[in-house]
């Protein structure tokens, strides 16, 4: 079967629009994702002047919370959101329309990217106003691109959870994955404060690889080629899980 790229793109945009509309009509979901990272920055970083007042450390802290914002948006909006959608009869209907997995997954990727960006706005504004974080324009743009790339494995993780599990199972699993990965990857405490064994272990986590690359792009130091390998490896692995879960999914069972 030949794939008409133009048609796939139009359909992807239609699915994106559909998901964006569904999400923004229940604004509290969007607002929650926007507020939480900024709140975390206010509680954990702003009171510590030695971090907030230092350009390098403040930029690094904002970058870490930015990755946390993106990964939590991905894992929750996908993990729980997809599981919720699958429980709805309209989702079964959409699966009977003449579209394959590409427009649906593509629509989820694009709408997830959009809401991830939106979730960054209050954090970046607060970081600029209340801390000494001062990336150059190039570093800022590079950082936004990098944080989306670094969020990719979590996006696929969210999709894998959403397509494999029910809503009741997806919610706790999303939480169980999110917080240890965020902590272990140095998103709450910088890895310089880790004991040696944790630092070594952390090096194999997708959060740590993403964080190192992001800090490298925004402050100019810290990442290695190994981080790239780890991030790409996790992305491929989790994407394969997501595709498998999608293929196995036949909606709810009934009668």
């Amino acid at each position, binding site marked *: 079967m030949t794939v008409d790229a133009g048609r796939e793109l139009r359909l992807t945009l*239609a699915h994106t629009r559909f998901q964006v*509309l*569904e999400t923004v009509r229940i604004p509290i979901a969007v607002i929650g994702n926007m507020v939480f990272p900024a709140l975390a920055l206010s509680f954990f970083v702003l009171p510590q002047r030695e971090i907030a007042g230092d350009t390098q450390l403040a930029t690094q802290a904002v970058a870490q919370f930015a990755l946390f914002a993106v990964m939590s948006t991905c894992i929750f909006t996908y993990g729980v959101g997809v599981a919720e959608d699958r429980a709805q009869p309209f989702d079964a209907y959409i699966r009977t329309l*003449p579209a394959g997995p590409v427009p649906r997954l593509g629509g989820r990727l694009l709408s997830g990217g959009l809401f991830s960006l939106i979730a960054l706005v209050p954090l970046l504004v607060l970081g600029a106003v209340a801390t000494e974080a001062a990336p150059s324009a190039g570093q800022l743009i590079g950082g936004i691109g990098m944080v989306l790339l670094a969020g990719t494995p979590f996006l696929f993780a969210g999709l894998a959870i959403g397509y494999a599990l029910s809503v009741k199972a997806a919610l706790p699993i999303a939480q169980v994955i999110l917080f240890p990965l965020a902590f272990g990857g140095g998103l709450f405490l910088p890895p310089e404060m880790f004991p040696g064994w944790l630092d070594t272990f952390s090096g194999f986590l997708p959060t740590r690889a993403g964080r190192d690359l992001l800090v490298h792009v925004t402050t100019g130091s810290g990442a290695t080629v190994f981080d790239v390998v780890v991030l790409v490896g996790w992305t491929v692995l989790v994407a394969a899980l997501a595709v498998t879960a999608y293929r196995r999914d036949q*909606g709810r*069972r*009934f*009668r």
Partner: protein
Amino acid sequence: MTSATAPPHVVEVEHVTRRFDATVALDDVSLTVRRGELLGLLGPNGAGKTTLLSLINGLRKPDSGTIRLFGGDPRDPASRARLGTTPQETGLPPTLRVAEVVDFVARHYPDPMPTAEVLEMFGLTDLARRQTGGLSGGQKRRLAIGLALTGRPELVLLDEPTTGLDVDARHALWDALRSYHAQGGTIVLTSHYLEEVQALAQRVVVVDRGQVLADDRLDVILDRVALRRMSLRVPDAAVSSLATVPGLTQHETSADGRHELLVSDADAAVRALVAADVPFEGLTIAGATLEEAFLTMTRTPPGATQPGATQQAAAVDQARSTVTTEGARP
């Protein structure tokens, strides 16, 4: 059965079995739908109708057997380009507006109807900006069927399209489906109401417990399932004369001594009893339920009788209360 490549077949189902855990939802079902047919899948709830549709529309895979939709695998999106289906009434995305949902569906098809035309056809123009969560049951159903026709499909699958609607709304939807069919469209609809199948279908497939019990023209099926239940008392001496009642498909004796007959034509049966001077009393006549009709279809060949059988007497009271009194009293 013609060869697999025969183009007039819109749907081909061959020896399909589908289980859900221990339940066999479809048991070795074979069925072909030809272009332009208006086919009714008739059967009680849980008979396997919805499962069969979910195999044809690609939502599920059969455990064994093959399904072809326009000659291809229904799980391949390209096979579904000429297929229209409906969401369940409760299944519309509640926060989206009516026109947004139609637009979204239309984008999946190469030559869809303009959104305004779909809304106009189903009387939804004034509701275009309404969120679907705010629609009434009838409005949701109209939108659902509108979505099935939005892509100008060649085949439409409708699962219980008008169940629970009031008479006016039901007739309006039937008109829309008839006009779609008149323009060459193929329709497969499921129902557990004989009335709905009777109003629309030309060919009827009766399904129960995952098996095809009958597949024939509407009038032939009607003769077999549109049974009447006659209940009457007769003196013991006259019982044997009941066996001569025309169109008798089942004869039971209930616990209180009443005779329960399932007959294809109650008028003819009453005339025959009167003509034979059978001294009956307390005659009542009611429509038999489809379930009763299906039971006689599975357990006895048409025309055979089961005199004295009592094991189904308990189900008698569940007969639908569409009592017809024409000629009921001697």
